[in-house]
C-alpha cells in the first residue's frame, strides 16, 4: 500500500535525522578543547573536565548507537512495542542530558555571582562556541526523538 510506504519513508528519514544529530553532538563536543594563558597559569577547557558534559557525550553516544540499530530493524509488529518503549527511554535520556549540559553551559557563559563563580567563556571562546554547537545539535536530536515518538503513536493508533 502506498500510504504504508510513505509512513515507512517518513519514519526512516526521521530516524536518520536523529542519528545525524546525535552523532554530530557527540563528535563536536568530544573534539572541543581550548587553552588560554591567564596571569601565569594555563587555563584548559575540555569536555571531560565537567561531569555534565561527560554525561551529555555518553547519552548522545548511546542514542546514536541505538538509532543506528533501530534503523536496520524493519517495522515488524513483534518488536514495535519494545522499540516504542526504548524510544521513550532514549528520548528521556537525551532531554535530561541536554538540559544538564545547558545548565552548566549557562554558568560558564554568565557565571553565578552569588556563588562566586566567574564565567569562563571570555577566556576559552573556541571551546564555548563548539560546545554551543554541540548543545544545539543535541537539542534538535531531542526534539526529533519526541517527534518520532508522537508519529509512531499516531501511526499505531490510527492504522
Amino acid at each position: 500500500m502506498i500510504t504504508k510506504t510513505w509512513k515507512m519513508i517518513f519514519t526512516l528519514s526521521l530516524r536518520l535525522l536523529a542519528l545525524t544529530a546525535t552523532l554530530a553532538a557527540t563528535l563536536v563536543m568530544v573534539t572541543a578543547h581550548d587553552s588560554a594563558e591567564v596571569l601565569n597559569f594555563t587555563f584548559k577547557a575540555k569536555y571531560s573536565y565537567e561531569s555534565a558534559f561527560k554525561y551529555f557525550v555518553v547519552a548522545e553516544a548511546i542514542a546514536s548507537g541505538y538509532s543506528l540499530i533501530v534503523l536496520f530493524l524493519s517495522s515488524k509488529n513483534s518488536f514495535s512495542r519494545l522499540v516504542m518503549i526504548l524510544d521513550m527511554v532514549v528520548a528521556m535520556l537525551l532531554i535530561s542530558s541536554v538540559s544538564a549540559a545547558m545548565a552548566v553551559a549557562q554558568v560558564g557563559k554568565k557565571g553565578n555571582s552569588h556563588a562566586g563563580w566567574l564565567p569562563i567563556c571570555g577566556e576559552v571562546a573556541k571551546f564555548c562556541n563548539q560546545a554551543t554547537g554541540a548543545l544545539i545539535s543535541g537539542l534538535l536530536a531531542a526534539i526529533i526523538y519526541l517527534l518520532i515518538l508522537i508519529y509512531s503513536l499516531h501511526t499505531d493508533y490510527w492504522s
Partner: protein
Amino acid sequence: MATQGGGKSEVGVNSSPALKPKDWVLLSLRLVAFFATATATIVMALNKQTNTVVVATVGNTPVKVAVTAKFQQTPAFVFFVVANAMASFHNWMMIVVEFYGHKIDYKGLRLAIIAILDMMTVALASAGDGAATFMADLGKNGNSHARWNKICDKFHAYCDRGSGALIASFIGLLILLIINVMSISKLLKPKHTAYIGVP
C-alpha cells in the same frame, strides 16, 4: 455496558456526579507521583539558608555580613521548581478528570490526549531533574578546572534540603515514566472495544 480498562465510553448514562474508576493501579500511581513531585517542588521552593560571616573587625566589634543561599539564585533550580510544579499539576488534573470528567465529550481522543500529555510531562520533569542534578553536583564538588569553588561546605542545610528535593523528584520521574508506559499501552490495546454501544 462493558468497558475495558479505565476508559469510560460516552455511550453510557451516568447520573451520579462522581464515578468509581476501574483502574485503581494507575490512579494510585498518579497519586504517588503527585505527592512526590509536589514534595520536590515545595522543598526546593522553601530552600533558603542564611549564614553570617565576619568580614572585618573594627576596633573590638566584628563586622558581620549575612550571606544567603536561595534557590532563585540558580536558574536550573528555578526551572526544577517550575517543572515539578507543572508535573504535579498535571497528575492532579488527571486524577480529577478520572473522577469527575466523564461528561466531557472527547470525540474519541481521550486516551490519545492523556498519552501525549503524559509524554510531555515526562519530558519536562526529566529536563528539570537533569539540570538540577548537575547544578547540585557543581555546588557540592565545585569544578577545579574552571576555578569554581564548592558551596556545600558552608551551606550544609541548603544542600541537604536540595538533595532531598532531588530524590523526591527522581522517584516522581520514575513513577511518571511507568504511568506513561501504562497509558500508552492502554491507548494501543486491540481495538475491538471501539464497537461497544453500536447497535
